[in-house]
């Protein structure tokens, strides 16, 4: 499967925005992790922004960045939101309330708990009526999301926004899922065209064929291993480098996803 990459959004410690982060990902500047301020996600109507969780704002922020870069109208774009755990901080709040005698769950907290919360808020912000999917595949949620998005581009010849995101998990849930840093990345994917700047070639391989992608930078590699959405880093680094490169992502115990990045000359 070949898809064109038309826009990228990125938010993580020390990686605030795709354009700003590109030299770091290309290896031209050192990676320096820093605290991420709560993103603006300015496309969200004020009411929705106030009610939305951190993970929704992170996901919407990178989605907005990727869409603005691509220049496509978000009302014409289908979406795939991939997250291992979804709204973990909302689950924490919900389960605290449900452990009390009164169990007074707020309606807002409940509707925020769905795995498609970020997808829903994005749809409301953009008034899009296009198809929207939210999925999970534990640590391999990015690979699964990329396959779903690419298959959508291939089968339906449409433009698809892929957003991968997972937030730092609050205590005590972090004992069960020790994600310590937030990470969100977005890609606008489309059928390849004569003016595409980056083509991504996806190939599904059986079993442990190749070596799974590792990152040379120790801190970036730690981030990649800490957060399922950060499994997108090898792909982001390959695109940032601007040269032809193949990276391999794990998918479950018995599949691998080989991604060949082809920068186009025109």
């Amino acid at each position, binding site marked *: 499967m070949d898809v064109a990459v038309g826009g990228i959004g990125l938010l993580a410690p020390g990686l605030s925005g795709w354009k700003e982060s590109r030299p770091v990902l290309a290896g031209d500047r050192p990676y320096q992790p820093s605290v991420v301020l709560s993103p603006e996600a300015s496309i969200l109507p004020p009411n929705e922004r106030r009610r939305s969780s951190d993970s929704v704002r992170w996901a919407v922020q990178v989605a907005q960045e990727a869409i603005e870069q691509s220049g496509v109208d978000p009302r014409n774009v289908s979406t795939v939101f991939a997250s291992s755990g979804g709204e973990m901080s909302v689950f924490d709040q919900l389960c605290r309330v449900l*452990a009390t005698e009164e169990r007074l769950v707020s309606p807002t907290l409940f509707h925020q708990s769905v795995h498609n919360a970020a997808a829903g808020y994005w749809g409301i912000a953009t008034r899009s009526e296009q198809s929207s999917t939210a999925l999970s*595949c534990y640590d391999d949620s990015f690979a699964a999301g990329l396959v779903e998005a690419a*298959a959508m581009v291939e089968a339906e010849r449409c433009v698809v926004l892929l957003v991968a995101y997972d937030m730092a998990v609050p205590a005590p849930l972090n004992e069960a899922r020790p994600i310590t840093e937030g990470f969100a990345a977005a890609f606008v994917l489309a059928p390849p065209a004569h003016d595409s700047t980056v083509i991504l070639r996806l190939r599904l391989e059986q079993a442990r064929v190749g070596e799974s992608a590792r990152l040379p930078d120790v801190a970036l590699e730690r981030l990649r291993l800490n957060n399922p959405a950060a499994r997108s880093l090898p792909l982001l680094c390959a695109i940032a480098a601007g040269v032809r490169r193949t990276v391999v992502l794990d998918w479950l115990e018995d599949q691998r996803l080989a991604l060949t990045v082809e920068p186009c000359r025109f």
Partner: protein
Amino acid sequence: MPSSSGPMAPLVLSAYTLVTANGRGTGAVLEAILARRSALKLCDFEDVALKTYIGRVAGLEDFSLDHDLQPFDCRNNRLAWLGLQQDGFTVAVAEAKQRYGAHRIAVVMGTSTSGILETEHAYRARDPRTGALPARYVSRYRYTHNMFSVGYFVRTCLGLEGPAMVISTACSSSAKVFATAARLMQAGLCDAAVVGGVDSLCHTTLYGFSALQLLSSDPCRPCDEDRDGLSLGEAAGYVLLERVERASGRGAVALLGYGESTDGYHMSHPHPEGAGAVRAIRDSLARAGIRPEAVEYVNLHGTATKANDAVEDKAVYSVFGARPACSSTKGWTGHTLGAAGITEAIISALCLTKGLIPGTLNCQRVDPALQCRIVRDHQFGALSCVVSNIFGFGGNNCSLVLGKL
């Protein structure tokens, strides 16, 4: 309209199975429908003190998953396991494995709350001094509450090695699994797919829907003029999807089309005119390559909330007019949320096979404000094409077209 050109290639439902509160296996479910026997009972789930009716699957408290499956043990996966044991489904999958190879069969499951009940229990059992969660919970989070849990579980039980993921878009989750599987097959990433949905009762949804004031204090009454909310249920269902030319020939029912859309309107209220719903239905017909006139029966989402049934009626009427028979089967099963898509797809398949248009259980008097032809009583006769609607939180819509080949 889908931007792809032309209809999709039909996919055969070559094996399917369903467990709801009505019983284990498609035979029990169909028998309950024919006998107009609802499974909804006054809520007796754990210590929940809400006056509401639920469709609880009996027996899930009486066994546990053991041996290799022990880490997966939780209500949701017990229900998933129970579903796999019915209707010879595992045998059909084993045969498909022989034909295609384990790595060429995908697993695409849907759920809304996965095993969140385990986390709810764990929060009540926190260490009073440190606030820590029980160690047994911590080591099993991945296999129970994590959203992928049921996908991992089903793949493990069936010994499949193809692409796998869990779709979680609230109520539309296990309708959308058909769309994802169809795309994976079209893109050549697999030759067949096990699609399904499993969602089980938990405090989050019972107290959550109660907070939204969407739970009826009686068994739900879809399309009734006095309907006042939904009843929650739980279910597990699976379908083995294969291409027509490679299917074993047992399946007479096929997925002809799917349509997906969003409202882009509100997280928990449907769009007042049902614009997104109309789009999903129209897209499903376009993919099936059929005109609205070919559809004889619409299995409504029909949750029995004031808003859903009114908006869905507008949407369905605007596409079909008052010609096709319409009904909701939630009076039997309750709203099984992330399993509603697969539940109603399989009920639709059973109806196609039996030539049955099911009535709307618990609907005493059809709301005169509804324009569609809502049927209260069963009708029998040849049936060749059905549309099943599922609409959910976040304004996420999916319609499926099922038909006889």
